[in-house]
């Protein structure tokens, strides 16, 4: 798929289900959200960009400590959700814009911190996105990436990405921590792997949230039930098909 068709796929996929992401507990709470906010350690003056803001959970968590925050996404319905919540919560330092991480509409060295949570697995060309993020950060600026990462074992990696794309056709890839570190470094960052959380995905709400069609849900169940023992163990697959995903925090610094 070309980048623009992936972008259309994302807009289609999330346009229909945006409201589900305002209420999703996996997205609205969780140790990884708290961990990302703590890692940002904002002092009140920073200009922040939230890349792939979705329903805005990171934006709402960071806005009270940010000088100014720009939240971008590709999906209009997600942006409408976020903007409505920004107004309801009374944040006057937040701006919401439709933009593509691969072509950021900002001059060089515009931001102190860039964050992205549960969005980077949609990047059609992650290295281009990382180059853009690097470009818009100031020297000394920080990049905090939280996303699902693939397990080290190749079989579990393939399996996880297979179920992800069956559930969500706009899924591109969960990269491994090693791959993210290499890509961040290739883009110019001094990169670190800070933490990995194990996040439980309750099967029924996982597919309902994305409005996955019934035949795909049935196929997902078959795959999860018939998964090889090693994969079942790595992903902690349960009898009701709920399972656990590794979610990593990777940080990068723009050298001075």
């Amino acid at each position, binding site marked *: 798929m070309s980048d*623009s068709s992936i972008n259309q796929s994302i807009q289609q996929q999330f346009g229909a289900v945006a409201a589900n992401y305002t209420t999703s507990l996996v997205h609205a709470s969780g140790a990884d959200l708290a961990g990302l906010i703590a890692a940002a350690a904002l002092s009140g003056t920073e200009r922040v960009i939230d890349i792939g803001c979705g329903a805005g959970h990171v934006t709402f968590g960071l806005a009270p400590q940010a000088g100014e925050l*720009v939240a971008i996404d590709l999906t*209009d319905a997600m942006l*409408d959700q976020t*903007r409505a919540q920004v107004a309801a919560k009374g944040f006057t330092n937040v*701006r*919401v814009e439709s*933009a*593509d991480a691969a072509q950021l*509409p900002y001059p060089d060295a515009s931001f102190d911190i860039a964050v992205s949570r549960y969005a980077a697995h949609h990047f059609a060309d992650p290295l281009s996105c990382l180059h853009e993020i690097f470009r818009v950060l100031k020297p000394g600026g920080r990049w905090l990436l939280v996303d699902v990462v693939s397990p080290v074992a190749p079989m579990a990696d393939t399996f996880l990405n297979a179920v992800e794309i069956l559930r969500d056709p706009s899924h591109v890839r969960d990269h491994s921590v090693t791959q993210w570190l290499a890509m961040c470094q290739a883009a110019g960052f001094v990169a670190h792997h800070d933490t990995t959380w194990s996040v439980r995905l309750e099967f029924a709400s996982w597919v309902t949230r994305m409005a996955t069609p019934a035949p795909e849900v049935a196929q997902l169940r078959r795959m999860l039930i018939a998964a090889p023992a090693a994969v079942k163990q790595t992903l902690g697959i349960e009898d009701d098909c709920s399972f656990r995903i590794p979610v990593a925090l990777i940080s990068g610094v723009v050298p001075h």
Partner: protein
Amino acid sequence: MKTFRWLGIIFVAIVGFVVYRALRQEDTVTAPQSNSKRSISPDLLAILADPGDKGPIELVSDAEGKEWLINRRNGFRYPVEDGIPIMLLEEGEKNKDDSIITG
């Protein structure tokens, strides 16, 4: 017959002039008189750039009061929908207007 030909030429000239005026008007309404009607603050504009060439863009209102962020180097126009700038290259290209290009 000659009279009709002259009438036709005059008609085309008038239509051309009206279209020209309408197009010119679109990019002359640029001065932000009062910020209350503007949905984008000057602070934000200062850090917005064209997603393609990364150069500066300009906020304008067209004859219907619709806001656009325009790039005068290539004519790309990015719409502002419900206060949300749509800063996607394909949108800018779709709404391209060569008449706004300045040297």
